[in-house]
């Protein structure tokens, strides 16, 4: 079964450092997402991405965050200057459709295993 893969599985960084989390979505999917889960808390939507631009972003996704798809396969999340409160599990997801459009089931998100970010 196709998978979404994420690297690294765990990254430890110093506050103020830049971090890039990488994701390889399912190959025929067109919509890409980042979510985060602070330990013991809910899964929070960060951003969705389609056709090389952001489709939707949450209030969490401020100027410190950016996403890009540099080479047609990887989908990256960059945190420019990490803060302690950025420590979380970051999940990448992809889907072949977005919203309610498209074939039934096509907007189901497939998630990666997550990248745990620890900011010291």
């Amino acid at each position: 079964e196709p998978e979404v893969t994420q690297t690294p599985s765990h990254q430890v960084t110093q506050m103020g450092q830049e971090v890039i989390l990488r994701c390889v979505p399912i190959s025929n999917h067109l919509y890409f997402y980042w979510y985060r889960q602070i330990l013991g808390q809910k899964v929070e939507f960060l951003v969705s991405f389609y056709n090389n631009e952001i489709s939707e972003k949450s209030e969490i996704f401020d100027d410190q965050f950016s996403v890009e798809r540099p080479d047609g396969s990887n989908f990256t999340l960059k945190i420019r200057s990490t803060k302690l409160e950025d420590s979380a599990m970051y999940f990448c997801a992809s889907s072949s459709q977005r919203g309610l459009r498209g074939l039934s089931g096509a907007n189901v998100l497939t998630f990666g295993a997550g990248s745990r970010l620890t900011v010291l």
Partner: protein
Amino acid sequence: AQSVSQHNHHVILSEAASLELGCNYSYGGTVNLFWYVQYPGQHLQLLLKYFSGDPLVKGIKGFEAEFIKSKFSFNLRKPSVQWSDTAEYFCAVTTNNNDMRFGAGTRLTVKP
């Protein structure tokens, strides 16, 4: 504000007990509804989904959920839980204007 609410933060059951986890949403219009499960140390996996049609949806591992439009609810049920069902369960909603949003999750602990 639009949201997804899961009222039970932590549920503890003995094996063979019946399970019902509540989920309510506040989005208007047409919604797609999902339950995802996160086993300890693992990533989110789809348990079941509702798009249209029969409001009683059957998923994997004996789980089912019922969409009650008038109550804006999509509760998850299982008639007899097993120790292996110990996990975190997340209700999620997608609308035409919003990407998938999750509830806070319900931690289920099943005692052997």
